């Protein structure tokens, strides 16, 4: 039974590390794109994509308009907070691997607030800003 347990452990390690390594490698070499991760769409402002504005594919439909994206501090704070919480949790498990550590209520509240800010910004860009622009 000991050999079976050891093999199961090695297999689990290989699968978890394999999945993680493939996703991390694809993020690192750009196959999984992280472009515009920290950029939010700014409603009401559009830019013409360079590749399509010069003719070619634009054809009869005219140039395709892309969204203007601007740097979002809300996304940056959410990213920092996410990485910090994940690292803290993993550290707690490595230090004491007897049970899953609970997440402090303060962290959950902060994460909920952070997510709320992120979603509010997204909703603002999607609904409120176009309405405001139309009213003007």
């Amino acid at each position, binding site marked *: 039974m000991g050999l079976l347990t050891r093999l199961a452990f090695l297999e689990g390690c290989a699968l978890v590390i394999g999945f993680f390594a493939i996703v991390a490698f694809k993020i690192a070499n750009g196959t999984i794109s992280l472009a515009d991760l920290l950029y939010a769409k700014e409603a009401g402002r559009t830019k013409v994509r360079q590749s399509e504005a010069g003719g070619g594919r634009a054809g009869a439909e005219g140039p395709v308009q892309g969204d203007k994206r601007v740097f979002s501090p809300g996304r940056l704070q959410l990213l920092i907070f996410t990485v910090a919480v994940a690292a803290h949790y993993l550290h707690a498990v490595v230090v004491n*691997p007897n049970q899953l550590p609970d997440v402090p209520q303060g962290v959950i509240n902060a994460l909920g607030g952070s997510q709320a800010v992120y979603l509010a910004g997204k909703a603002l860009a999607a609904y409120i800003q176009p309405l405001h622009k139309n009213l003007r």
Partner: protein
Amino acid sequence: MANNEQQPIPYLWIPVVAFAALMIAVLFFFLRMPAKATANDQLTLLAGSVILVLIACIGLVVLINMATNRIDLANLLSEPGGGASLSRFQFLIFTFVVSLSLFLIIAHDYKFPDVPGGVLTLLGISASTYAVGKGITATDPVHMAKKGPPTPPAAAQAAPAQPAPPQPAPHV
């Protein structure tokens, strides 16, 4: 979709079968049955070995397909409107962290631990943010305008409207 047209990897079965054979050989030569093993113990050992080899083979196939882009991960973090989605990225990180933690604890104690409410709340917040963000993107007027009006199914377009067949007179 171009990715659906990809051909399966030729001779993928060779490494999978070789790996399975290696595992079976290791189990066959090195796995020792206890002297006073009951039929229940033998069945447990056999079932464990079969499940171990099966999961290893399935995992190997999935990993090979992921590594060779047969399973396309390019849009794993992408939003429908373009660009990477922070909520998807966060969901990915938390999923990896919790699964790795769970694996470490199970490997340490050989028992499934209780999952605290705080962890479930954390994953719940992350998943609901992802769902709400997806809803906002899908109902975004700009995004909907780009997609255009929904088109009726091709079959409905092609087939002319058929008159309804005459109904039999009801029996009185």
